[in-house]
């Protein structure tokens, strides 16, 4: 039982990262129906931006909390800049192009960004990330179930990010315009909504959340590397689809589900199909099963015909 609870906690921590990155996928998809495969790289850039801020820009002895805030800002600046450039120069010219064209563009951007960082950020191996939040500091959740400080932080920022985003989308003017654009871009345009601006907003919000996640990941694992975005990106995309792509709560739910499935498969899947080597296979099996029975994902609505 104790192991089960501890694994549940592990799953939630893992899922928090997936969920946070999945939000970026889901928002962009919801509005432009684009699978932005390069979003994982935005997450990676967030981590590197934060690392750069710490190692290059911050003077030694900056108070931890201040350093964290500035690192987050640094990460966000990098992520958002990259997302804006990507939107402007890679995706926007392709609006109205055959739908699969942007998919290949996304792939190209993804490869480009990975290689850019790998080649031009000094030293070509995983980069040590400052351990500003002590990983050996454990919080007990009762019955010897524990969570370390950076892991707890990951979950907390993820939850804050998700709540903030869904509040923004539901309450703010821009958020409602986003919903309208997602529902029906043509009508939204007729109603005077600047859809270009809405699309940019979606990219920016997604990048900001990815940067949060990138920083959290750096703090949690103590390293960032140029490839970290790719795997996380695929998982996050999976999470977004699992939850029902285009649906904000769905992305979060999908992320947690995926994280928990992976962890539980490691521990409890029947031998010999258990363990880390099989966990991703289980994750995808669950995805396929969910989609077979709920073709639009866990929270996805039946997609209306769009004439």
């Amino acid at each position, binding site marked *: 039982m104790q*192991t089960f609870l*501890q*694994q549940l906690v*592990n*799953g939630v*921590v*893992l899922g928090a*990262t997936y969920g946070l990155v999945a939000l970026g996928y889901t928002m962009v998809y919801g509005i432009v129906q684009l699978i932005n495969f390069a979003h994982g790289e935005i997450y990676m850039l967030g981590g590197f931006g934060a690392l750069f801020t710490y190692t290059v820009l911050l003077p030694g002895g900056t108070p931890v909390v201040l350093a964290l805030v500035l690192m987050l800002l640094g990460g966000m600046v990098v992520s958002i800049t990259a997302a804006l450039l990507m939107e402007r120069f890679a995706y926007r010219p392709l609006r109205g192009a055959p739908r699969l064209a942007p998919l290949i563009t996304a792939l190209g951007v993804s490869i480009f960004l990975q290689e850019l960082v*790998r080649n031009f950020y000094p030293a*070509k*191996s*995983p980069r*040590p990330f400052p*351990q500003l939040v002590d*990983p*050996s500091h*454990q919080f007990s959740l009762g019955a010897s179930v*524990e969570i*370390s400080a950076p*892991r707890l932080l990951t979950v907390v920022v993820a939850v804050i990010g998700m709540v903030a985003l869904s509040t923004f989308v539901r309450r703010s003017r821009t958020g409602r315009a986003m919903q309208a654009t997602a529902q029906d871009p043509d009508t939204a345009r007729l109603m005077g909504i600047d859809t270009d601006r809405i699309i940019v907003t979606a990219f920016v919000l997604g990048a900001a959340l990815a940067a949060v996640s990138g920083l959290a*990941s750096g703090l*949690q*694992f*103590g*390293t960032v*590397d140029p*490839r*970290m975005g*790719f*795997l996380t990106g695929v998982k996050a995309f999976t999470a977004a689809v699992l939850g029902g792509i285009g649906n904000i709560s769905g992305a979060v739910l999908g992320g947690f589900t995926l994280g928990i499935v*992976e*962890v539980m498969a*490691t*521990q409890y899947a029947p031998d010999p199909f258990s*363990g*880390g*080597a*099989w*966990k*991703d296979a289980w994750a995808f099996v669950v995805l396929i099963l969910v989609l077979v029975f709920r073709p639009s994902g866990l929270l996805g609505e039946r997609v209306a015909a769009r004439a």
Partner: protein
Amino acid sequence: MQAPRLVRVAAPLIIGALVLSACGSKSESGSGSGNITLTLGVIAPLSGDLSAVGNGIKNGVELAIKQANENKTIKGVTLKLDAEDDTAKAEVGAQVAAKLVADSSVIGVVGPLNSSVAKSTAPVLSQANIASISPSNSNVDLTNRGVLATGGTQTRPYKSYFRVCATDDIQGPFAADYAVKDLGKKTIAIVHDKKAYGQGLAEAFAKQAKADGATVLPTETINPGDKDFSAIVTKLKAAKPDFLFYGGEYPEASLLTKQMKAGGLNIPLMGGDGVDAAEYIKIAGASANGDLATALGAPTDSLASAKQFLTDYKAAAYADPADPYGAASYDAANAIIKALAKAVGDGKKSGQAVRDEVTKEVQDSDFEGVTGKISFDQFGDTNTKILTVYSVKDGKFVAAKSGTFGG
């Protein structure tokens, strides 16, 4: 009116194409100073994730070539390097191997880095009887060593394939003996990354550890590229092991040891030469203290020649570090250079004859390299089976024990 227009427009282009084809062929522009140029090939990942390691191999070979040319080791021959990028993929490996075979000036190859790539390069190179020496392939299949475990008769699958590193079935057991016999560990957890190298090593370790009387827990696996190993740590913790052997490379190993210790499982992690890297300690930080890694050969700083190599390497100011296989590649290149010198001395200077002769001479190699003595058995494996265990003390790998498995 239509057709003439078409013809008129097409005519210059067609004439142009004809001119192009007439001028397309190139002529050799050799001035013929009497010195012949032969090529030493390298097959290694020069782009992608493993490029730093691959460039280390390339640089090691380049250094050897530079010294040979400066010292005029081979009379009348200028050596040049042709480093080909295999992108760590078997498919591409076979291709660049064919490229090197097609270049008649190529007389030997150093590489590749990965065993899986070697499985597709070795057949191609062997067919042309080009000697290839890998600094790092540890998979038993390549020299068919796997049959030894089951009592079969070893036969050589690739006639011109050699390697200067220890195979998994030597490194793993050596580590196991150290863990069980020297450190007295009783309950050992095994984790590997489910790659050919990691799994081969971990399996060989587990087998020997059992034979030595330790309790070996069911093997756990992780995925290369993963970062969150908390599920594995939680799972292992329940079984209360006192030692962990990890088959794989440092990026995951460093995260695993850190998360293990943060998760309250305070036991040493041991790995193979894939873990023996300065980066491991950089990432794992204080968690790395007490962790262990095995590596081929005697400790580098105990050999004068090795020190000289490192100095030379540093002087050449390469962008990528010599670690982990630069020194072994340097030795491999020198084995080929020495063989070529003999072949040229025998008057073999070109074509298939020189390739045949070099392969034959590599087989008979016998010299002191910077990683130890270089000589090969009849299957292409190195005769040198000296290994060293290093342990992390104060942020550094320190040699703990040198020896050879079973000896």
